[in-house]
């Protein structure tokens, strides 16, 4: 049964030192900043966590700047248009204060969430073949994969292998473009199956190679939605990114939202919903809580904040952490942060233009 609670309560209950948390949203869109900021407020208790996500990296930049990340399993740590690599994460990987970092590609990670979502033991991935992404196995090298002498998992959150490769038992029959007699209707035209069938890499035998990846089953997934019903039914608007999948994979799902609504409101058109009520564990309402990221149809990202923060986070680690201490750690809760630190004027300036879903006239000077 989903339970409505405050951000403080949700974090106190579900996020502790070392907890594996999968952060939802993508880059600047629908990021769960309310819970992230509450983790920063509780950083003396939480100390650090196992951070995982598909697509970077604004929430993770904030958590890294507060020295809250000890382990990462992810795909991308850039801030895209504003900073090519999130500097607080980058410098901590380089100097060793984030000691473990496991790389995947976006589709590799998404495929792991497909397996997790469907309850499959693994799922096929036709990418990453031939690259170094699967080859460097950090968790394996750190001795975190596999079983102890007593048969228990060394770390139950980490699969015994990063990947496996098999020869396709169906000989590439299902791959597109398919060799139909009069060709396939797909747009792609290249198909080197005849060459690939001769390959004996990975498996030692000839055949069409298929990579298999294990599911990901995060201890906690946190996402942000526009509306959540009192019963836990979730509807997201705009682009979904990795969220529906990784929410379905989780053991505990925290959904923060713009608005909690009566369940009838979302059950009137259930085909538009993304998550059924039984998946949600905790519901946290915080209007504007996705700030400074964009929440489609509600408000835009705060371009000016990101640009100025992208300069600030190049200063010393101490100065950057001081910024977070003064602006977030010392606030009482997210209303205090949003009203006092950001200000209602700024939040109102970011409200979405209805026909666009974002602020159509947002000024974006570099």
């Amino acid at each position, binding site marked *: 049964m989903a339970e409505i609670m405050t951000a403080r309560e949700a974090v106190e209950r579900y996020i502790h030192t070392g907890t594996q948390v999968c952060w939802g949203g993508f880059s600047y869109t629908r990021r769960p900043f309310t819970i992230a900021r509450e983790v920063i407020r509780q950083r003396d208790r939480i100390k650090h966590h196992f951070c995982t996500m598909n697509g970077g990296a604004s929430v993770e930049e904030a958590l890294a700047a507060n020295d809250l990340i000890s382990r990462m399993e992810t795909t991308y740590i850039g801030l895209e248009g504003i900073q090519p690599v999130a500097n607080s994460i980058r410098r901590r990987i380089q100097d060793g204060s984030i000691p473990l970092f496991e790389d995947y*590609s976006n589709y590799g990670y998404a495929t792991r969430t497909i397996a997790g979502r469907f309850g499959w033991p693994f799922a096929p991935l036709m*990418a990453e073949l031939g690259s170094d992404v699967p080859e460097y196995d950090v968790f394996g090298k750190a001795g975190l994969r596999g079983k102890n002498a007593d048969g228990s998992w060394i770390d139950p959150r980490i699969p015994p292998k990063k990947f496996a490769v098999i020869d396709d038992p169906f000989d590439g029959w299902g791959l597109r473009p398919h060799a139909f007699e009069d060709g396939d209707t797909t747009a792609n035209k290249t198909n*080197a199956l005849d060459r690939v069938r001769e390959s004996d890499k990975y498996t030692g035998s000839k055949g069409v190679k298929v990579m298999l990846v294990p599911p990901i089953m995060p201890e906690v997934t946190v996402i942000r939605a526009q509306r959540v019903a009192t019963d836990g039914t979730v509807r997201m608007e705009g682009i979904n990114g990795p969220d529906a999948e990784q929410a379905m994979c989780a053991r505990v799902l925290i959904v923060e939202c713009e608005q909690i609504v009566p369940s009838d409101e979302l059950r009137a058109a259930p085909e538009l919903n993304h998550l059924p009520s039984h998946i949600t564990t905790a519901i946290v309402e915080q209007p504007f809580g996705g700030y400074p990221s964009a929440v489609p149809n509600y408000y835009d990202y705060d371009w000016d904040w990101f640009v100025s923060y992208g300069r600030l986070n190049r200063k010393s680690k101490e100065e950057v952490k001081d910024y977070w201490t003064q602006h977030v750690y010392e606030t009482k809760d997210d209303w205090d942060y949003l009203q006092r630190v950001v200000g209602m004027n700024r939040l109102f300036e970011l409200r979405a233009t209805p026909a666009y879903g974002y602020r159509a006239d947002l000024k974006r000077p570099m």
Partner: protein
Amino acid sequence: MQQVSDDAYDAYLKERGLTRTQYTSMELLAVAAAREVPDGAFVFAGTGLPLLASMLAQFTVAPNMTLIMEAGIVGPRVEHLPISVSDPRGCLHSSMVSNMADTFGTTALRGYCTVGMLGGAECDMYGNLNSTIIGGYWPAGVSESGKGPQVRFAGSGGANNIASFADKVLVTMVQEARRFPERIEYLTSVAGARGPREKHESRWDYGLVRGGELVMISDLCIMRSNPETGLLELDAVFPGVSVEDVVNNTGWKLDTSRAKEFKPPTEEELKAVRMLVDPSRIYLGRKSKREAAAQQK
């Protein structure tokens, strides 16, 4: 092409200190990359210059292309340049927005990923891209030095996947010899042939079913992969650049025998990229290292 009045364009040029015929490195790269997009293509574009170039292609040479952004966007008609592949600006008037598993599965792997546009930190002679690290891979917890890599980059994101599934990959990069080594340190994305076929090191030997055609668009030149050998060869040099400049900034023995001169950006192309794609000059305003250095002198 959408109409932009001459008065509005003149005012823009004056305000920004630009002319109708001169162009910056970023503008040149965008135009050169856009010209490589066949009309009707399904284009997977990463953030930055790739997105800029694909939008320009849509306004010029490829009005019937479908733009795809990996966070879940299929076929938008963009009005405001997105700064992320999940930017709500990218979703405008899309045919569908869904999720990441869908864009790579339902769209790319299913057979709708004909052109991929990527960037990278390093590119080698076979078109392999590194966007992960330089100076050691292992993070401190498992490295011998107790430190992490010298330089950590953003990582694959969707680049590996786009490189795996596209028929043709376009890469834009700033060209320096150290960024164009014979062998890259970490292979993030198999964007070209991968390695020599006779040594069983090609992309097909490793099981990738599609692709192999690579076009590298640097700030000096255009290189193309030779369909037989898989090696990147010089195809065209940009105006004001000599073949020698290119050779000096390439870490392998570059075949220059088929080099042509590049047809400079037209006034129409420049107008489109400035007025329709990036009027705030979010990306166009950036200077390449080479430009910045030239300005210092």
